[in-house]
């Protein structure tokens, strides 16, 4: 058997039982590698369940900094007897299978093309701990200690992490370190450490941080000045408002009076949640809601009202696999079309596509400025992969000189200087009219907000030409919007090429990696990451400059491609789809494979796969 040998480049997958406290131990492992200066991308693969079902945690370590999902498993660590058959089957030939051998491995499962490592985790726990809960929790910490020995991790980094994690709770530090040592000593004593796969400290992460996108969104809303959050719990968006509340409790409670500079309302459903956001925004507060696909469907009617009545509205959509309930704990980018055109009638909504936690933070804060400047819904499109996993990211930064852009709002003094106020009158030629908050002026500036047609002065009308004028102004506003939304990020490959890839959100890391591999195949691709809708000029120019553009996205129906075709009136030939919609994040190898099949003259199996594929046990 040829063992997989590699340094700082592998995928390890933990197989646990939901609700057994494995998350924090697995997190300790990933963060330990990160502190050793290694790029990591941990991903939770969890069931829609509270306790008892299998859950997995996959960590990719890549010194080259490839953070997308690689696919495949070099090391599996399974403490879940129920998923063990699958877990052992998934290991690449030459890989390693670590398991709790207190109960011997079913002989029918054993493989002779992998290294099998048994750790008597349950036995050690039963000998060491009396309390059943402790037996459960420390089992997880013990295997992290064992892995540290097997992979040659810096043990001091782990103990340092434990000390940081339980700062102020000294009673917890020593037992955790003791558990780490138990595992570490057992592995050292019984195996030839390290195994073929190992790690060594490097300097590859700089000042980066490990953060999940949802926390970044919540924090962005704090910095962006949101005061009203209305929401209905839904996976995978719930932790956005949790984070908002956590930080609000830290920084938004007046120490003197105990009064809150925020209001969080858990609504009875998503219709109500978005209604509250619309009401609060209409009344001059910065407000947001967070939801996922099913919630977005329910919010559609209000989004149409906010579009037509021009009320700032901020919505964070953390997408999951649809349609209907779909796979609630799996990722997809499949709400693009339903968000872009949400609601009946002619509507279009501004979408923002972050791809890192840093961008979640930035776009979250930005969305409040945009909503108030543009007086329309801003829908920030995250997804489960970005939102619920720790992603390596640039650190968060805030410019203390920055002032909120509250948009066109008239004060009492402004109103006194005016002849007549027209809520829907385009005074400045940018198709954005001025608004007033209720209560501004005793006799001027009041108006009637409605979802029915009205003239420039907000007076109800059923005259076709008045209605049409207003709808055309909204189209003109759409043009204005293009100047405000974040432009695309373009990476030219440096070689003359007529082909390109186009992607958004969480496809970025894998797309970049695939572009590198394809360059090894002799296929050179320029790349553009779209960051917003409406698409601005740069997107159009980039499409014009390339003959063939592969649009990479994580849904079945090529939704972004449809949006591009509709907005630019492009024919179907130019844009080729690269899709992944099985609920797992798209991988570089998947992208590469699909592009190879579509490139003229390249739809053949490469002769030397090992030259192009990354990762230790990479298979094609």
């Amino acid at each position, binding site marked *: 058997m040829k063992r997989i040998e590699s340094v700082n480049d592998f995928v390890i997958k933990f197989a646990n039982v939901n609700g057994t406290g494995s998350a924090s131990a697995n997190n300790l492992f990933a963060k330990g590698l*990160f*502190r050793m200066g290694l790029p990591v991308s941990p991903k939770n693969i969890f069931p829609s369940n509270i306790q008892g079902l299998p859950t997995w945690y996959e960590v990719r370590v890549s010194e080259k900094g490839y953070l997308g999902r690689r696919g495949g498993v070099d090391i599996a660590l399974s403490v879940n007897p129920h998923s063990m058959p699958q877990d052992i089957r998934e290991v690449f030939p030459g890989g390693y299978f670590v398991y709790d051998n207190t109960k011997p491995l079913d002989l029918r499962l054993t493989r002779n093309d992998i290294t099998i490592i048994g750790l008597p985790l349950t036995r050690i726990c039963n000998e060491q701990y009396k309390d059943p809960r402790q037996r459960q929790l420390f089992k997880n910490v013990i295997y992290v200690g064992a892995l540290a020995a097997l992979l040659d991790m810096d043990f001091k980094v782990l103990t340092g992490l434990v000390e940081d994690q339980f700062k102020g709770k000294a009673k917890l530090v020593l037992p955790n370190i003791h558990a780490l040592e138990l595992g570490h000593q057992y592995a050292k004593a019984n195996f030839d450490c390290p195994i073929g796969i190992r790690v060594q400290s490097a300097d590859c992460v700089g*000042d*980066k*941080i*490990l953060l999940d996108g949802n926390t970044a969104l919540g*924090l962005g809303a*704090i*910095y962006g*000045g949101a*005061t*009203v959050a*209305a929401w209905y719990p839904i996976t995978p968006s719930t932790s956005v408002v949790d984070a908002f509340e956590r*930080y609000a409790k830290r920084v938004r409670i*007046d120490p003197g*009076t105990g*009064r*809150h*500079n925020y209001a*969080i*309302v858990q609504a*009875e459903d998503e*219709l*109500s949640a978005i*209604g*509250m*956001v*619309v*009401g*609060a*925004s*209409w*009344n*001059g*507060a910065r407000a947001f809601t967070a939801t996922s696909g099913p919630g977005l469907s329910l919010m559609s*009617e*209000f989004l149409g*009202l906010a579009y037509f009545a021009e009320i700032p509205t901020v919505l964070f959509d953390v997408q999951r696999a649809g349609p209907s309930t779909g796979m609630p704990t799996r990722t997809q980018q499949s709400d693009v079309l339903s968000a872009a055109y949400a609601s009946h009638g002619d509507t279009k909504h501004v979408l923002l596509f972050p791809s890192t936690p840093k961008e979640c933070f930035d776009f979250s804060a930005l969305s409040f400025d945009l909503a108030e400047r543009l007086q329309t819904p801003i829908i920030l499109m995250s997804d489960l992969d970005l939102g619920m996993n720790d992603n390596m990211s640039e*650190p*968060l930064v*805030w*410019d*203390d000189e*920055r*002032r*909120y852009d509250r948009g066109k709002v008239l004060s009492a003094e402004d109103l006194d200087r005016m002849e007549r106020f027209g809520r829907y009158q385009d005074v400045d030629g940018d198709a954005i009219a001025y608004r*007033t*908050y*209720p*209560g501004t*002026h*005793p*006799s001027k500036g*009041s*108006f*009637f*907000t409605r979802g029915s047609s009205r003239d420039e002065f907000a007076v*109800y*009308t*059923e005259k076709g030409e008045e209605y049409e004028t207003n709808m055309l102004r909204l189209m003109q506003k759409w043009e204005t919007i293009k100047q405000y939304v974040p432009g695309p990020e373009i990476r030219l490959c440096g070689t003359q090429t007529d082909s390109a890839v186009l992607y958004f959100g969480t496809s970025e890391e894998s797309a970049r990696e695939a572009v590198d591999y394809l360059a090894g195949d002799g296929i050179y691709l320029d790349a553009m990451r779209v960051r917003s809708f409406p698409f601005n000029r740069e997107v159009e120019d980039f499409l014009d400059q390339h003959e063939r553009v592969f649009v990479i996205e994580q849904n079945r129906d090529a939704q972004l491609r449809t949006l591009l075709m509709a907005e630019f009136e492009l024919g179907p030939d130019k844009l080729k789809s690269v899709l992944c919609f099985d609920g797992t994040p798209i991988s570089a190898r998947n992208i590469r494979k699909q592009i190879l099949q579509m490139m003229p003259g390249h739809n053949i199996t490469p002769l030397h796969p090992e030259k192009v594929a990354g990762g230790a046990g990479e298979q094609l």
Partner: protein
Amino acid sequence: MSYQIPKFRHPDLPVNELGYTKADYEGAISTLCAGCGHDSISGAIVKACHEMSLEPHKIAKLSGIGCSSKSPAYFLGKSHGFNSVHGRMPSVVTGAAMANRELLYLGISGDGDTASIGMGQFAHVIRRALNMVYIVMNNGCYGLTKGQDSATADAGSASKKGDPNPFAGIDLCSLALQMGATFVARSFSGDKTQLLPLIKAAISHRGFALIDVVSPCVTFNNNPGSTKSYEYVREHAEATGTVDFVPIMHEITTQYPPGTTQEVTMHDGSVLHLHKVSETLDPFDRVSAMTALEQHRNDGSILTGLIYLDKNSRDLHDMLQTSQRPLNQLDESDLCPGNKMLVNINASLR
């Protein structure tokens, strides 16, 4: 179409403490049917706000969809209005009230808007004790779509179309009590004497105040056989007693024989006199109020007047401990923690 009421007024129109005439509280000319009960309610709202000397621009009027929800255009023209989505006014008011606690929130809805499509939001806004006045213009039918029965139509009641309604009617006052409303009243658009002080009391109340106003639809549901017709309601209404509203700092002029009147001081300092309250109802006791509603329903009569008042009511802002300064007045210095905190957060994430 909206038409503005002519600005010309008699020079001697009485002014209130703010120097405003009643005309300053009016809105556009109503486009509802002549004789519509809703217009009488609008008139009572205008009168109540004028007499209470409320600043019109400090009132926000919000509604859903339907005939009733159109009516905010016909009163309080100097107030901001919001004609929102069918059945969803409560959520919009909730957001608005969170943004600025200093305004008076007047929600106008109908029986379709409240008891059918918006029943969920109605129940939950009560449960959340939002500080608002919620007026239902209740005519038991859908006017704009030509007279279908609504969910508040009584079983057996027949609209102009003629077929008796086979389904049980929803009693919004009972529902409101069940959901924890702290002010519940029912009135009749044809009885302004009763309605006016109830609106004033509801405005003075802190927390959620419901007034379910039976308001006949003259076009589709004012026929013999309907239990929401002018005639039927006049004959079957039974008042819980009379309510006299005395605004804060005003002298109490009405004299009542001893033992016939209960006095309640409202949250804003105004005083409510409950006169000759029915012997079967203690309006400060929720169970008594629920029983009285059920009894009258059983007897085929319509209980009107103040049905329940919780003198120790709280509102959502109390529960959330929201800042006294309206949230919409806070700026960067109040809201943004600055880069220094981010530096610490970043450090904790490495």
